[in-house]
């Protein structure tokens, strides 16, 4: 039973917990305010329950997920049982027996889980580096002292044999090793108790704070489609996040929600291909600096740490390696949004410092500013592919039903992408769709500029494009570039656009269902499908292209190991298309190797960027004739003829 002293200790531990968390809370609140819609409370709560109690996302990684599940339930339930036990002294023996058995099993599971976690932590060498594993060692000690106490108790009490075995088999086994010493029992119980208090009080001071911060982060998650980049007001002299105080409080909350599990690393194409970026270290480092600034100054006058610098986790090449593929976000169990942090710092580098970005980007920015496309060709070239085609230009026929947004890649890049555009037009014509193109009035959609950190350029382009589109009263847009698709659909509404945006595959699916388009001959060949990030993870378009391919191909698709949500980026996103990469392997090479490994004759994709990247990788391997990289549109064009 609890003595007054024990209660004091419990109160002390809880006070330490609360004060510690409040301190963290003050750290977060240093960030800029970010309005969160407090609506949808039930949906949010439901998501939290699913994620926290049900381990929905945690279990996606089997090893870590199971270990976490064991520890979570092996800690929470016994704790609750023991707490309840303190209030109810008389318990029905049958219940007590079941309770004891449950405690034993859960304790064993928790022990297994802790062991698994410790093994992994020590193997990664993480215990020595940035995070200590004290929370895991404490857990281990709690569990061991618990079992030892149980064993000693059983030795002393010596109840009848089968009852012991059934109610607490582990304790029973241990009891053979323990002396019948009441002193030892007392010692074990006390140390068990103290360790639990130590663990609870220490929660805010180790990565275990993720239990609270992570839950908060889950509750305050954004319910809109993923990957939307926050609007930046272009006022003042400093833009983006160059100092700790520039981050939103949500971004700072991320750093405490992260428990350094490393899933983001395992799904980060930049990390896997050996480039100097680890989303985990970005978040951890940010958290470290957040705490550092707090330690050296009183609350109001923080010494601010300049974040974007030449070296370290944020400087040099690191933040530019991110392809904004959302692989990390998709795999993160507490929904940390690493690209938000990275794009914020890129904005600072491009807009405020204006020097600390790859020099290749300078040319891209200037080209886009002067010529309106990333390639620096000029707006009239945007119609060149349509010279001999009977395609309506919207400035001549403003009454068309649908706008076909061609985009920089489709209109300008090279012979093949331009041919693809022609094929797309042929398909639309065949289906009798009343469509037009903007031609020379089209500008770059600005996706790359935004993700390279040049928010100014993006907003200029977005305003210009929206103005043009509104001028011709465009309602429906179809595009075959997933990047344009995403920006039009999800990011242009920040500037007052409300168009109905379809990806080409979606439109074709509708046309096929309506019977306006008929597949004449199914195509031969065994293919695999590469999910473009901006279709899949950004917009959840996994099923549509697959349905379409089912209808197009005779044989079934063969999926790669990285597919759907776990798709591996081709390496073009986030401005990396223009960046000269010198460190590590190329992402597209890794991806094409994976595709070749499926023993197929080709890989299908639905994004011009992916196609260019993968094609170059295949050619570099000397497989330009033996392994095909095809766009879904090229297949369709063959099939409907």
């Amino acid at each position: 039973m609890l003595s007054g002293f024990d209660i004091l200790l419990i109160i002390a531990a809880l006070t330490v917990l609360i004060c510690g968390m409040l301190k963290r809370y003050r750290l977060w609140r240093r960030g800029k305010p970010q309005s969160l819609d407090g609506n949808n409370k039930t949906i949010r709560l439901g998501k939290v329950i699913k994620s926290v109690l049900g381990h929905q996302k945690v279990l996606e990684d089997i090893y870590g997920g199971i270990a976490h599940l064991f520890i979570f339930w092996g800690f929470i339930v016994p704790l609750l049982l023991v707490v309840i036990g303190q209030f109810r002294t008389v318990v029905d023996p049958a219940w007590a027996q079941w309770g004891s058995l449950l405690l034993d099993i859960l304790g064993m599971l928790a022990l297994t889980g802790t062991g698994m976690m410790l093994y992994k932590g020590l193997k990664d060498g993480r215990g020595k580096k940035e995070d200590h594993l004290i929370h895991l060692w404490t857990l281990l000690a709690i569990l061991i002292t618990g079992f030892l106490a149980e064993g000693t108790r059983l030795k002393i009490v010596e109840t009848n044999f089968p009852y012991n075995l059934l109610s607490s088999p582990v304790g029973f086994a241990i009891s053979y090793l323990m002396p019948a010493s009441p002193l030892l029992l007392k010692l074990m119980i006390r140390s068990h108790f103290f360790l639990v208090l130590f663990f609870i009080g220490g929660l805010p001071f180790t990565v275990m704070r993720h239990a609270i911060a992570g839950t908060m982060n889950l509750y305050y998650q954004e319910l809109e489609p993923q990957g939307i980049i926050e609007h930046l007001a272009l006022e003042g002299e400093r833009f983006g996040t160059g100092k700790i105080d520039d981050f939103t409080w949500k971004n700072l909350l991320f750093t405490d929600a992260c428990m350094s599990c490393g899933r983001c690393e395992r799904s980060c194409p930049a990390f896997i291909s050996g480039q100097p970026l680890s989303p985990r270290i970005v978040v951890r480092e940010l958290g470290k600096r957040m705490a550092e600034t707090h330690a050296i100054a009183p609350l109001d006058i923080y010494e601010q740490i300049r974040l974007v610098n030449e070296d370290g986790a944020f400087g040099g090449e690191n933040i530019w390696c991110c392809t904004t593929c959302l692989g990390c976000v998709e795999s993160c169990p507490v929904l940390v949004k690493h690209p938000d942090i990275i794009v914020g710092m890129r904005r600072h580098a491009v807009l405020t410092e204006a020097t600390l970005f790859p020099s290749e980007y300078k040319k891209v920015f200037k080209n886009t500013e002067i010529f309106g496309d990333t390639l620096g060709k000029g707006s009239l070239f945007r119609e060149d592919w349509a010279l001999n085609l009977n395609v309506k230009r919207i400035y001549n026929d403003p009454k068309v039903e649908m706008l076909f947004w061609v985009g920089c890649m489709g209109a300008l890049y090279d012979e093949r992408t331009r041919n693809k555009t022609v094929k797309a037009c042929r398909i639309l014509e065949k289906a009798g769709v009343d469509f037009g193109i903007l031609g020379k009035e089209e500008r770059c959609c600005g996706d790359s500029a935004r993700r390279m950190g040049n928010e100014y350029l993006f907003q200029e382009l977005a305003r210009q494009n929206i103005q043009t589109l509104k001028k011709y009263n465009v309602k429906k847009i179809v595009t075959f570039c997933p990047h344009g698709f995403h920006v039009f659909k999800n990011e242009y509404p920040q500037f007052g656009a409300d168009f109905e945006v379809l990806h080409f595959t979606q439109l074709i699916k509708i046309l096929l269902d309506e019977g306006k388009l008929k597949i004449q001959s199914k195509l031969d060949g065994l293919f695999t499908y590469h999910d473009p990030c901006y279709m899949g993870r950004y917009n959840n378009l996994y099923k549509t292209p697959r349905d379409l391919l089912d209808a197009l191909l005779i044989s079934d698709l063969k999926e790669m190991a990285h597919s759907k949500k776990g798709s591996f980026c081709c390496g073009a996103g986030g401005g990396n298309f223009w960046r000269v990469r010198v460190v590590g392997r190329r992402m597209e090479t890794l991806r094409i190797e994976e595709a070749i490994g499926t023993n197929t004759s080709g890989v299908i994709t639905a994004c011009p960027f992916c196609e260019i990247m993968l094609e170059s990788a295949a050619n570099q391997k000397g497989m330009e004739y033996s392994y095909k990289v095809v766009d879904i549109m090229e297949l369709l064009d063959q099939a409907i003829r």
Partner: protein
Amino acid sequence: VRVVVCIKQVSHIYYPLAIDVSGKQLDPEKLVFMLNPYDEIALEQAARIKECYGNCEIVAVTLGLSPSEEILRYAFAMGADRMIRIDFESTDAWLTSLVLAHVIKDMEYDILLCGKKAIDSNAGQVGSFIAELLQLPQVSRIVGLKLFPEEKKAIAERYLGKGDRQLVECSLPALFTAEEGLNDPRYPPLGRRLMAEKENLEVIKMEFPEAHFDNEMDLTNFMSLSPPRPKPKKTFAPDSSLSASERMKMIMVGGITEKKSELLEGKAEDISRRIVEVLELEKII
């Protein structure tokens, strides 16, 4: 140190056959207006001088009608402190130089910077003419510049072609015209861009300086426009085994057949790697 930079808004023809149906003028749709790239290099040099000596004023001067204010604001974003537009239109290098020299004469300056030429007229005369009119020493096509403001002198590195350089020492004030390779112009920070929008811009009205001309014939006259002789066709051969960024670069510079100087930036390791890549691409090694 006071620096005056003369800049020009050029009309760059980006689409073939830019002469319109009348045959008298260029089709505005096929032009883009931009800051002359060599002037941008000159501006960057001025900005670097400012960073180096601190107490420094940069004046950007341009000649033209109100649309050319755009480049002045860009110049401000790059680091200029004052923006002056001379409200005068001229297509003749001598006339332009006269007007510019007339305005600059009244200013205080230590260094005058110009681009080596404008990419639309390709004359490359204005810098030299201004130096002549103001009786200044002139070093053209510089790829390096060292200043000694206390001793009132400067050492400039001139580009002579084929890798040859000439070191020239001259007294200040002096005029320098910038060659590609002098520096790599910066991308202006957004804060200064927004400031430039609000900044006051000085406009100077100019009359035609008749005193300098005996008759109209002294000026270059616009006679007619003619389409260019068709060039030997340079096709871009996309070597698809190259990475996307390499191919992009090739598209942007117009294929590998074109010889163009390029400034490499970054760590020594990266630069050497790029050099080897280029040499391999050109089949030299």
